[in-house]
């Protein structure tokens, strides 16, 4: 007997056929397992069987039933069916159910052997194909994992936590394919912060690596320009940096047939300006706190990698306190419903004013949730990448005050001679909390409102008694200036105060009127331990209401 070529399973209820087949295939070098019916064939089926020959008409389980079982459990085996002349329709049915071929009895042994060899070869090929596919899928998964890891570690810079005047959050959620989204933050000095956001065309490891390369070129160019220019200008402008990166990378990008869209933005706290170079990136959304409107910032430059890009144009955008800048990748706007409807820039832009007052990381979370709700899926086709930069109070300390939880707080005594000192404190704190936004006129009005509140506390809550405590705190909350007064005197009921007379017939009564017209909101409340709290909420953008006509 030849060396065993492998196992072959035959099933036929006719013992003569079993003997003939066994002899035939043993002679060809196979180990033959012979079953008397379909049920036994199924029981004796093992994974190392190379070929199966089934009689169609058998007791217990017929050929079709056995075939179906094999198809379900061993997809890479295609049995050959034996059939008597008269039941050819069953043979056709078997072919539909995944049989390799059929042969009619009485059969030609040579033909059957050739058929079995062919079935084994075909099945082996199918097995190899499946294996390659599985390996490929595994490799792809591995690549995605690698690309995602590159993205998370090399492409995404960590936003600074303690940059005075800016609150920053960023997030990236990789898609199944991984784009080359990247961002980075560079603190030029204590007053200037650079934010780079970009997107490499293409997907997978290649674009992730390209993104990493672009980022490192930025560092390289900034270093070189900075050194070369240190006598004249200590730090290069954004357009010079982008030009340098473009010059350094253009040949590689052309060779790799790729390009990079990006926005290089510099936040300059001293001038309250954001100067940026945009190279075909998604339009940055600038929310203005003062007006409640959004502007879409778009540059005129082509993406990096386009030969005709130079020179790069620098744009300047002024900002104020409470403003917000939203940088993002196309993964947000191109998220779509199952019907193919895009989320789009308009929807995104409409969301920003709604979320402008909440902390930046929560803004990103809310927007992500909104896009998930819109698209009906938690996974997007493209990476979800965004950076939120919010202009917040830069808390400098006025002398003599204490700062706690981002507030300025100071204690005074209930003496009218303190008024002047109180106004100085308020002025200093306002300038510190709102460095750019409050003009002289507005600050004078705030001084006036504070003077009126304190005068009321001294005269009415304390009945003119001096040396009682008045604590004043100034802070920033939801884009508004909050001024809080605490006293231990009699509580105050604003409803019992008489209205002012504008005809000059009475001297008093203007205090409350002034307070309510300068502040956007005034709350008087009695708290536990006999403390009264007066809170003024003032939006820096508003002017005082004018007096009503009489």
């Amino acid at each position, binding site marked *: 007997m030849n060396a065993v070529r492998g196992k072959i399973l035959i099933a036929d209820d006719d013992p003569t056929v079993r003997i003939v087949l066994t002899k035939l295939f043993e002679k060809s070098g196979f180990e033959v397992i012979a079953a008397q019916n379909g049920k036994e064939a199924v029981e004796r089926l093992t994974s190392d069987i190379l070929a199966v020959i089934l009689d169609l008409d058998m007791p217990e389980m017929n050929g079709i039933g056995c075939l179906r079982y094999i198809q379900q459990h061993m997809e890479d085996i295609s049995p050959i069916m034996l059939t008597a002349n008269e039941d050819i329709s069953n043979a056709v049915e078997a072919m539909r159910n995944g049989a390799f071929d059929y042969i009619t009895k009485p059969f030609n042994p040579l033909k059957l052997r050739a058929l079995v060899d062919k079935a084994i070869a075909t099945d082996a090929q199918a097995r190899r194909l499946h294996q390659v596919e599985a390996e490929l899928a595994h490799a792809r998964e591995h690549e995605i994992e690698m690309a995602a890891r590159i993205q998370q570690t090399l492409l995404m810079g960590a936003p600074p936590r303690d940059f005075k005047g800016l609150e920053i959050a960023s997030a990236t959620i990789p898609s199944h394919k991984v784009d080359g989204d990247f961002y980075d933050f560079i603190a030029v000095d204590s007053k200037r912060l650079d934010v780079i956001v970009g997107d490499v065309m293409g997907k997978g490891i290649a674009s992730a690596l390209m993104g990493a390369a672009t980022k490192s070129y930025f560092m390289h160019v900034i270093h070189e320009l900075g050194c070369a220019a240190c006598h004249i200008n200590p730090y290069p402008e954004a357009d010079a940096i982008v030009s340098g990166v473009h010059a350094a990378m253009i040949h590689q990008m052309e060779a790799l047939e790729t390009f990079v869209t990006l926005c290089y933005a510099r936040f300059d706290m001293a001038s309250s300006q954001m100067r940026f170079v945009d190279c075909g990136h998604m339009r940055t959304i600038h929310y203005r706190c003062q007006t409640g409107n959004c502007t879409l910032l778009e540059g005129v430059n082509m993406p990096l990698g386009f030969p005709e890009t130079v020179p790069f144009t620098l744009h300047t955008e002024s900002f104020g306190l409470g403003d917000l800048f939203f940088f993002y990748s196309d993964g947000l706007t191109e998220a779509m419903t199952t019907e193919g409807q895009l989320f789009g820039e308009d929807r995104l832009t409409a969301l920003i004013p709604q979320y402008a007052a909440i902390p930046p990381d929560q803004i990103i979370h809310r927007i992500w949730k909104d896009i998930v709700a819109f698209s009906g899926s938690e996974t997007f086709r493209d990476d979800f990448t965004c950076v939120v930069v919010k202009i917040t109070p830069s808390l400098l300390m006025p002398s003599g005050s204490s700062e706690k939880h981002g507030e300025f707080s100071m204690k005074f005594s209930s003496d*009218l*001679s303190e*008024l*002047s000192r109180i*106004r100085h404190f308020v002025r200093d704190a306002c300038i510190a909390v709102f460095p750019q936004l409050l003009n*002289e*006129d507005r600050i*004078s*009005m705030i*001084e*006036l409102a504070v*003077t*009126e509140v304190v*005068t009321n506390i*001294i*005269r009415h809550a304390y009945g003119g008694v001096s040396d009682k405590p008045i604590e004043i705190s100034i802070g920033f909350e939801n884009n508004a200036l909050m001024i809080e007064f605490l006293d231990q005197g009699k509580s105050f009921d604003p409803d019992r105060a008489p209205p*002012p007379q*504008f*005809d*000059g017939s*009475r*001297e*008093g009564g*203007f*205090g409350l*009127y*002034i307070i309510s*017209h*300068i502040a956007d909101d005034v709350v008087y409340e009695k708290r536990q331990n006999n403390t009264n709290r007066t809170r003024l909420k003032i939006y820096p953008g508003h002017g*005082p209401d*004018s*007096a009503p006509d*009489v």
Partner: protein
Amino acid sequence: MEMFSETDGDVVVVVVLADELDADNAKRFKSKMADIIGNNRKFVLDMGQVRFVDSSGCGALLSALRQISAAGGDLKLANVQKSVQSMFELVRLHRIVEMFDTREAAVKSFG
């Protein structure tokens, strides 16, 4: 509360020598003004140095104005700083008291 007064013809010009006119010094302002008013009728108050006035300060000005008006006279303001002007507009004082850019113009307006 430093104040200085001089006469220009039959007009008494009062110069307020304080940066602020608030609850702390309004009473002193009122009593000083009462002394100056006496039997005079025409007044110009030079506010050039005052950069802050609160409602008590306004009340003191209104009190002086009432006293002068009751005697058949008039009070005019000169050199009112912008921040103070805003405050006057808030309480509509600018509709009751005439204001002039210079002391001379205010004096002249009495004719």
